[in-house]
């Protein structure tokens, strides 16, 4: 399993000769098997950070190391869950779950897919096409697809952002359960402060492309947003983001 160490990471790009700084001077340590949430306003660079980490965009400066304890290792298997489910519309739920396993032995593939269909409660929908299922269901399939790929590091870019409050709560609970006993490192981006506290062992606050603060959340799972300590964390994070 793997963690990530980010040093002086920066990302700039140009729109019509105007330089835009998306990320600057990011220093961040993500331990192996930890669940880190990243919050910030829109435009704070959350998505860019994830896109660089999984190789969809090039960094402009800085270093990204992958770690195992104290050692630096070569780039592990990293994957990403996007804000939209991005399922292949021509494949059924079952085929979408196994989408990443192209060179896998068919028997092993079947076993893995069945396992994840079961795990995410999608068995009854396995023959449905993406346009026949709800948004929450589709995001569940997207999550299952990534879990089936079995990466060591999972990046999630507001995967629950487009869902209604009820579906969202259910999925938050499921994500806690899914990762509680799995050897995975997760970086979960959200703009929802409650979600960040509910899920993360550490909350990283991004602002204008830099890390403003990192707050370890010392609450046992499952967490309740009604508790007093939860409330205090929320206050602290909101104050940091609002800047007072």
């Amino acid at each position: 399993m793997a963690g990530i160490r980010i040093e002086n990471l920066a990302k700039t790009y140009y729109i019509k000769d105007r330089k835009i700084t998306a990320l600057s001077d990011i220093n961040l340590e993500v331990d192996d098997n930890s669940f880190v949430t990243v919050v910030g306003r829109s435009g704070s660079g959350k998505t860019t950070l994830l896109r660089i980490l999984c190789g969809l965009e090039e960094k402009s400066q800085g270093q990204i190391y992958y770690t195992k304890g104290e050692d630096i290792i070569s780039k592990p298997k990293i994957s990403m869950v996007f804000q939209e489910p991005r399922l292949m519309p021509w494949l059924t739920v079952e085929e979408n779950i196994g989408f990443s396993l192209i060179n896998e032995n068919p028997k092993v593939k079947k076993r893995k897919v069945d396992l994840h269909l079961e795990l995410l409660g999608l068995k009854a929908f396995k023959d449905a096409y993406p346009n026949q299922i709800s948004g929450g269901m589709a995001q569940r399939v997207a999550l299952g697809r990534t879990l089936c790929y079995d990466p060591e590091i999972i990046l999630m870019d507001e995967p629950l952002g487009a869902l209604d409050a009820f579906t969202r709560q259910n999925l938050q609970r499921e994500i806690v359960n899914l990762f509680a006993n799995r050897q995975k490192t997760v970086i979960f981006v959200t703009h929802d402060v409650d979600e960040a506290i509910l899920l993360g062992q550490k909350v990283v606050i991004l602002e204008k492309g830099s890390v403003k603060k990192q707050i370890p959340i010392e609450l046992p799972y499952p967490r309740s947003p009604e508790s007093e300590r939860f409330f205090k964390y929320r206050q602290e994070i909101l104050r940091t983001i609002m800047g007072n």
Partner: protein
Amino acid sequence: MTKAKKVLKSLFLPAAIFAIWYLTSNAGILNTYIIPPPQEIFETAAVLIKKGTLAKHVASSLYRVFFGFLLAFILAFPTAVLIGIIRPLEDYLILIIEFVRHVPPIACIPMLILWLGIGESSKIAVIILAAFFPIFLNTLNGVINCDYRLLEVGDVFGFSVKDKFFKIILPSAIPYVTVGMRLGLGYSWRALIGAELIAASSGIGYMIMDAEQLSRPDIIIVGIITIGMLGYVIDLLFFSLTAKLSSWNKEGAKSWQELE
């Protein structure tokens, strides 16, 4: 029930036309030398079918369409995929493509006859010209319009270029490809009849042309009805064969109607 109703509705107008045709020509309002009455058409059709003449001409037209269409697909599909993937190629080809696209295949028939004679090859060349562009342009469209967000899914799963092509680009282009093939099939059918009208020794177009020289309007009408019905049947067959392939894509089904 609704399906039967639909069929009934669609039969209403043809039935009305036949009825008016029948009544007017038998009442002596229409000149039966120019437009023979329906019963005469049926009789002629029966004779042509019985003698095997119609089957012979239909067979040679169908053979040309399918052979020419197959060749057109073999040429158009890989070219479109290649240009779709290697975009800079488009800059080199754009003028030629736009030029040839706007020349109707029928305009090339005299040249093709000079080059290839009046045998099979000139007909097949016409069909290739007619079917190439719809297949080519729609396939190209499908390949270049592949959703980049789906391609990024391939990226985050570590897909190779080959994997991305076969697992994402190609399947997402299939509705476009089938639309192109369907259009191409229709175009090649029309172009073929044109070619057979100009120079041929068999085929439905030839049968019509021959009937004109013999002053047999009944045979001409049988020929026209055969062309229309066969074209429709071919399209229906092709659609039912490929509908399943692109059933997930409602856009594809829509764009076909828009194109037509």
